[in-house]
């Protein structure tokens, strides 16, 4: 599958961030994922895009698998996920995935409002952007929207409401 322009843009932004803040995207962190990382990342993605009465969650639509696939092509993205998951599990309590929904929400909400130039916020912003792209490019996510088909071949002919 060809890499989308959006993905390339995302990886470029991550690259700039790592260069600017001298983070090392070393080979050690481009290695295989751990079970803890996978469960943390999945829980984080489902906090971003939860299941509701209209559509499934991020992991229901395999967004986690798609983003791990992206991370395999870019060690810096892999590194960012690693750092973000590490941070999510630094509460001193149980791992992020084992926290209650309220606790997970509070943690992600703090991330979303933290310093833009630090890892937690960058992790939140960049993963949110990538997850949105992977999630809403699937028709299963469109329930409840006034769009049912891709633009072609049918188009959206008048009369319009």
């Amino acid at each position, binding site marked *: 599958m060809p890499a989308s322009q959006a993905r390339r843009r995302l990886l470029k932004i991550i690259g700039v961030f790592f260069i600017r803040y001298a983070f090392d995207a070393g080979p050690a962190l481009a290695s295989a994922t751990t079970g803890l990382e996978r469960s943390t990342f999945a829980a984080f993605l489902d906090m971003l895009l939860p299941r509701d009465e209209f559509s499934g969650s991020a992991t229901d639509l395999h967004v986690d698998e798609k983003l791990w696939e992206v991370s395999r092509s870019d060690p810096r993205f892999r590194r960012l996920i690693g750092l973000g998951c590490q941070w999510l599990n630094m509460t001193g309590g149980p791992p992020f995935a084992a926290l209650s929904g309220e606790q997970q929400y509070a943690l992600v909400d703090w991330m979303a409002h933290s310093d833009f130039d630090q890892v937690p916020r960058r992790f939140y912003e960049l993963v949110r952007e990538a997850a949105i*792209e992977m999630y809403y490019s699937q028709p299963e996510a469109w329930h409840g929207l006034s769009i049912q088909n891709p*633009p072609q071949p049918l188009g959206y002919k008048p009369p319009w*409401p």
Partner: protein
Amino acid sequence: MAVKKRFDAVVVGAGAGGAAAAWRLCEQGLHVLILEAGPRFNPGADYRLHRPDWERFLFPDPAGSRGDFTIGTLGRLDPADEELRSWNRASGPLVRGNMRQAANPGYWHVQGVGGSTLHFVGESHRMHPDAMKLASQHGAGCDWPLDYAGLEPYYTLCENLVGVAGPAEQGARWRSQPYPLPPHPPSPSARKLLAAGRRLNMKWQENSRAALSMPFDGRPACNYCGNCSRGCPLGDKGSADVTFIRKAEASGRLTVKPLCPVVRFHSGAGGTIGSVEYIDNKKLQRVETPILILAAGAVQTPRLLLANRNRLYPEGFANSSGQVGRNFMETLSWSSSGLVAGLSHSHAGLPADVICWDFNAPDAIPGVIGGCRFNSATQEIGFTGPIAYASRVVSGFGAQLKNGVRTTFGRVMSVGAIGEFLPNEGTYVDLDPSRKDRLGMPFPRLHSQLERGEIQRLKFMASQSRRLLKEAGAELVEEAGAWDNFSATHVFGTCRMGNNPKTSVVDSHCRCHDHSNLFITDASVFPSSGGGEAPSLTISALAVRTADAIVSG
């Protein structure tokens, strides 16, 4: 290396200018070769609008489909103009800091058979007659060495070939014939804009569009998918591949060679260009050029001329004036977007389907020379799918994000504006001393800085756009403009047209002052940008006029 001697004319570039010139020459009985650096696209297979993940992709960009360039100086941001900073509700400021930046990639274009018309929205505009006489009538910028009346028959000819849909009333742009097709129905967001404009006593009308409102010349009517810039798989959009190239190939006298970048010019007798070298399948080829037409665009055309230096032309070909690469003009653009109660399905319909020319004349904006236009921009700037809403309109995460996408989708209305750009000492294309392509040719480097006039014009464009949205009852969610973001789709002026060989590169028929068999038929010849008019129709009209001049000697 053998020199092939087969063609009456060689054209470099298959966009709006190259394709139109080639068509006209073929029609007049000449055998023409087009050398195109980019690929030939297969709309049915290459464009992705039929796929569920269509929104992730812009126009396809396979190898060779983008020209090389680097970004030079873009200037600093004056805090006094902070009201022009680009932002959206999901991300906050889109450019941080005090330096103007190039929005990836900065210069939007396509190399390929059809050129940038493959990803253009398809607006089909004639220049305002007064915008061609800025210097003599308003004491700013530069005059065109021809006038509207001299171009009018060629506008008509191109509109009839391409199949332009538009309304009869065109104000100062007088017409000898009506458009070949009736205008398109205004989309849901355009209807809201028309109503708001009427209440503000602005004159809005259907835009003239190179997209078919009815079947025409073997091509189907538009089905209003709203995504022209991702590539039109139907063939209703009047890109150069399905219009000029198709017609020229039908003549049997056109040969198109895609993925064949030109790399070198060779001098001929009497100051002519005798032949060009190009790469075909990794092999260097050479072809004689009785007539050579450069139509590679306002960035690659000056690059080719400047990079080809020899003993006779130490400053590059066609450059005795020193003007090759100078007078670069970028796209002075603005857009404001807001959520409108009661609006739905704003993703549907034709992009840029309504327009306001009220401020398009050079003296129409108070306090500054050079006009602008306003248009419906909802689909054009990408509010056509849920990814755009989730990443630009709705902030936060969780239930708030998903509910937000559901409640806002189809409710964005955008006003766009494009204005005159006057060139200055800080706007030019030169050769990057530190970057070369794999063939050893230096990259072109783009420099573009805004002066106070451009800032004033942008402020007017922003304030009018906000006024329109306020009148429509919109809640602002995004604004983007050229103040902090260099994001050029229309670029002009690097080989400008004029009567004086000391201050211009080509004459009024686009013939180079320095080389009698070299013609340039792209937007690099524009002496001024116009007050926001989309340039493709003017490029094609000039190219056809040039072809006629070539044939008539």
